[in-house]
């Protein structure tokens, strides 16, 4: 074999190995972390934990208000953020292309996506909790989180709208469709899977957020379930945060179990969304 060929092959093998380790190292750490977590959570992972309320005794404490609070919160957040986000994206992509205003908004959205979440918390505290008088309620929390995930949804939706070929818009316009009809019946159905992806990202981000909820004043110890959107609430990350900061070692197990529940909820929500997206994609490809 030519010596140059040999060196090159060796280098290629080395490079491949390097890439592989880049993949495995973080993955291994993640698995280790999760494994450790599950082991710690084991003593608490039973039905009573899921259906119980917070308690001073670690072994009696449950996660129900946090779990229900988080589910309510996510549902409200998506209900608020999705229509607004998708609407904003439609304006920017389909109607505002090239306008100065659209450009200005665009730059700001990109910046907003990078603003630390605690700033959103402060904003939510002032606007929703105080000025609008929503109090420390589910709705105030959801509205704050909706603001937080809005840039994510807008950007993902714009990306999805951009993948719809112009030839389809032309076809619809040529048939005598108004701009609204084109968007509603051609562009949106076509970009639905991409929009769903944006919402999945938004849910993943919103469900783990703690800082803004702490700022707007989600409670950490409640022994009731919210009875409406204006009720006080807690959420899983808040509950976990609270348990971790307790001095008693027994609560560490609760925190671990809480994290497992949080991740389970997140996986369940995302799996549902991915299933829906997959179905829409199949419909589009015509293999119903």
């Amino acid at each position: 074999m030519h010596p140059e060929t040999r060196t090159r092959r060796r280098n290629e093998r080395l490079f491949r190995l390097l890439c592989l380790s880049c993949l495995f190292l973080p993955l291994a750490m993640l698995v280790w972390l999760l494994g450790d977590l599950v082991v710690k959570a084991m003593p608490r992972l039973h039905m009573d934990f899921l259906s119980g309320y917070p308690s001073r005794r670690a072994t009696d404490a449950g996660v129900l208000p946090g779990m229900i609070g988080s589910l309510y919160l996510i549902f409200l957040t998506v209900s608020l953020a999705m229509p607004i986000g998708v609407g904003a994206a439609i304006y920017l992509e389909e109607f505002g292309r090239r306008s100065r205003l659209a450009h200005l908004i665009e730059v700001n959205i990109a910046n907003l996506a990078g603003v630390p979440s605690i700033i959103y918390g402060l904003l939510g505290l002032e606007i929703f909790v105080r000025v609008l008088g929503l109090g420390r309620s589910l709705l105030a929390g959801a509205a704050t989180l909706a603001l937080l995930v809005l840039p994510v949804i807008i950007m993902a939706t714009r990306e999805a709208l951009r993948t719809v070929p112009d030839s389809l818009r032309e076809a619809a316009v040529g048939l005598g469709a108004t701009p609204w009809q084109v968007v509603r019946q051609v562009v949106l159905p076509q970009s639905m899977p991409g929009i769903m992806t944006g919402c999945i990202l938004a849910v993943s981000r919103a469900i783990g957020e703690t800082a803004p909820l702490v700022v707007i004043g989600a409670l950490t110890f409640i022994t009731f379930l919210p009875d409406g959107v204006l009720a006080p609430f807690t959420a899983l990350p808040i509950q976990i945060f609270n348990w971790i900061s307790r001095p008693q070692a027994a609560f560490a197990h609760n925190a671990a179990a809480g994290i497992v529940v949080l991740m389970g909820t997140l996986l369940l929500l995302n799996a549902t969304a991915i299933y829906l997206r997959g179905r829409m994609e199949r419909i589009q490809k015509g293999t119903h």
Partner: protein
Amino acid sequence: MNAQVATGRFEAEDADAWFGPKQVLRKVNLMIPERRITAVIGPSGCGKSTFIRCLNRMHELVPGARTAGRIRLDGENIYAPDVDPVLLRRRVGMVFQKPNPFPTMSIRDNVLSGLRLTGALDRSRAEAIVEQALRAAALWEEVRDRLGEPGVGLSGGQQQRLCIARTLAVSPEVVLMDEPCSALDPIATARIEDLLSELKARYTIVIVTHNMQQAARVSDRTAFFLAGELIEVAETDNLFTYPVDRRTEDYITGKFG
């Protein structure tokens, strides 16, 4: 509006068109007779596509594009301020270069899409409309057993005929075709050409083509465009046999293009 019957006769009078600062059509004066096939030929960039896009006011949708002059459909200026371009496009249908059936829709829904998009669909007549339009587009026999299947599952030629059926389902007076065969193989092209001669009994047809043989085969009249200007228009046989303008002759004999 004049007391004329709606037949789909176009008259362009000093029609100009621009893309931003660039003028792509200059003072085009052209009459397009009803229920005949008019071919628009010319080299790439001569303004032939722009011209037919002015006929259904789709040119103006491109940012920065504008038009001037008058284009009359059945005597009425389609650029008059009180004309709604959306309603105009229901009278003047368009078939595009690349077949573009709606991917989210079945064959049936694609045919009905124009009516459904505009909310003009009478459900009880839907099946009849689907069959009628598909028959008119010479596609019915091939797809009658699988109307529920997706339109994008058809072959390219079938997709283009589906697009024609979709256009016909809205019952336009005029059908504009922008190089409808350029993405198709010769057999599919032949089918569409056959179809055209059947359609002209009921519709005014304007077809843009870069293929002179096609213009010669299918059209009754041919208009030759060059650099945004209409150079010559005549009965197709005359234009190809006795071109009056030197540039027309050079183009059809293949000296450039």
